[in-house]
């Protein structure tokens, strides 16, 4: 059965000023993600990737269409679908340990249950020595590890990742990508992963969805045939490069299309 189903979802935001039109962020988006699958979304910025993630997370509701997780319509945010944000979203007044255990603690899970789990998760992301540290004492990459640990400790069935590694330097990004795949091996969560890094999308994803420039639609779906566990060496594999070439072309044609649209709108306004 599909873990996540997005059915002809439409999302628009009210116009910013009087007289301007409503902004259509998502236009008839269909998406099916099987349990344990990793699906990556790439597309030009402003194409509604994050809007789609927010709808699945339950932070926002679609204007039309339906989103269901486990066959049940999404009505709000919950710990079965944890979001990993791009920007720092750790609680700065809590230590690493406190951040990681925050969810279970507040939900009333007994300490005996969550503590060992939290220690294990912190160890899995390689931060055992830093459990008592505060976020401001950690590097950007370490903070993202804490965020992932804070997500995983809830044993979420779904991980929603919104460009989680975009702010990291190249080396850290590679390390985190491999780490994510290793962690996936442990509990096989379903992962919805947004990125603007084509290589990252192909390296992580079982499938890569390319979105159109605004209003966002799914333009193409590309299957990535590599078996997991994957190692970073596959990025130089000719098949990998071929897929990358294909995705890049799809994205570039989107840029060109949106540029032409902008030009057309501009000339229409002049006349």
């Amino acid at each position, binding site marked *: 059965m599909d873990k996540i189903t997005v059915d002809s979802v439409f999302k628009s935001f009210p116009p910013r000023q009087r007289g301007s039109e409503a902004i259509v962020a998502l236009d008839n988006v269909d998406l099916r993600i099987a349990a344990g699958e990793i699906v990556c979304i790439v597309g030009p910025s402003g194409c509604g990737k994050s809007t789609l993630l927010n709808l699945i*997370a339950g*932070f926002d509701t679609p204007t039309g269409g339906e989103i269901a997780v486990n066959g049940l319509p999404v009505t*709000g*945010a*919950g*710990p079965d*679908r*944890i*979001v990993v*944000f791009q*920007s*720092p*979203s750790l*609680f*700065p*007044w809590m230590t690493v340990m406190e951040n990681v255990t*925050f*969810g279970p603690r*507040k*939900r009333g899970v007994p300490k005996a249950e969550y503590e060992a789990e939290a220690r294990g998760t912190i160890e899995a992301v390689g931060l055992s020595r830093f459990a008592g540290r*505060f*976020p*401001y004492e950690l590097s950007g990459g370490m903070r993202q590890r804490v965020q992932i640990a*804070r997500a995983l400790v*809830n044993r979420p069935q779904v991980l929603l990742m919104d460009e989680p590694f975009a702010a990291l330097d190249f080396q850290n990004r590679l390390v985190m990508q491999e780490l994510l795949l290793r962690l996936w091996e442990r509990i096989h969560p379903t992962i919805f992963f947004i990125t603007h890094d084509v290589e990252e999308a192909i390296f992580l994803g079982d499938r890569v969805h390319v979105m159109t420039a605004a209003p966002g639609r799914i333009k193409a779906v590309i299957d990535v045939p590599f078996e997991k566990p994957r190692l970073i060496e596959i990025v130089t594999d000719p098949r990998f490069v071929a897929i990358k070439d294909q995705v890049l072309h799809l994205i570039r044609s989107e840029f060109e299309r949106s540029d032409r649209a902008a030009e057309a709108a501009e000339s229409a306004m002049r006349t």
Partner: protein
Amino acid sequence: MTEATDGIPRRAADRQHAPSLARTNWLRVRYPLVSVLAVLALFGAWELATDLFRISPMTLPSPRLMAKSLQTMLAEGYSGRTLGEHIVASLLRTLTGLLAGVGLGVPIGLLMGYSRFVNAALMPGFGFIRPIPPIAFIPLVILWFGIGEVSKILLIFVASFNYTVLASAAGMRSVPEQLVRAGTNLGLTRWQLFTSVMLPAAMPQIFTGIKISIAVSWAVVVAAELIAAQAGLGYIIADAGTFFKTPEVLIGVFIIGAIGLLFEVAITAVERRVLHWQSKA
């Protein structure tokens, strides 16, 4: 990390050339020493100037004369009360008004920051009162409540209440959306979200409001005591001024300054402990 005493991080290579203990001690004390010497020099120059230019003690008493007056004040008090009693009178008024103002101001401010409805209802009132200097209310509270304790405490209450309300409301509104989402996502109830995420996130601004409130309250209590009081530091300087007792005026001013400084040092120390995480993200 290894740090040299003057705060400059040392590289590993420098450790072999670590300065001697004597030099380390000298490095540690040199700037405080300069400060102490500067203060001593100031008093020396003051003493010398009053002597040299034969300045009348009524205009500017010499430090030695002031020390003598301070001794007398410590021994005999001022107008029937000990110096300690005057200080306690001022402190008690300030702390009572401050505690009430902060105690009521923080929750109301948080509510305003949380609910747009409450904000819309209360903001016009606070927005109007905020720019009025609290001492402008002195005649009014004396008219209404006389010259007793009530009017002074009320003034301090109004001043501190105003600042904490606005700071707490601003703090609440500036809680990063991302943190609230993270909390919701982890399954927190609305109440848990309020107490465990929004409140701590708003703490730095609440603290700033409290800090301003303390400074303003201290200024307001002195101003109120200048006008109508039988005890307190403001009373001392007003009364001594009326009778041209310049040394007592200056001593009163110094004590007011010293206590204001102590307040500041204390609240900053608390802030450093409680909010060690702020502005380091």
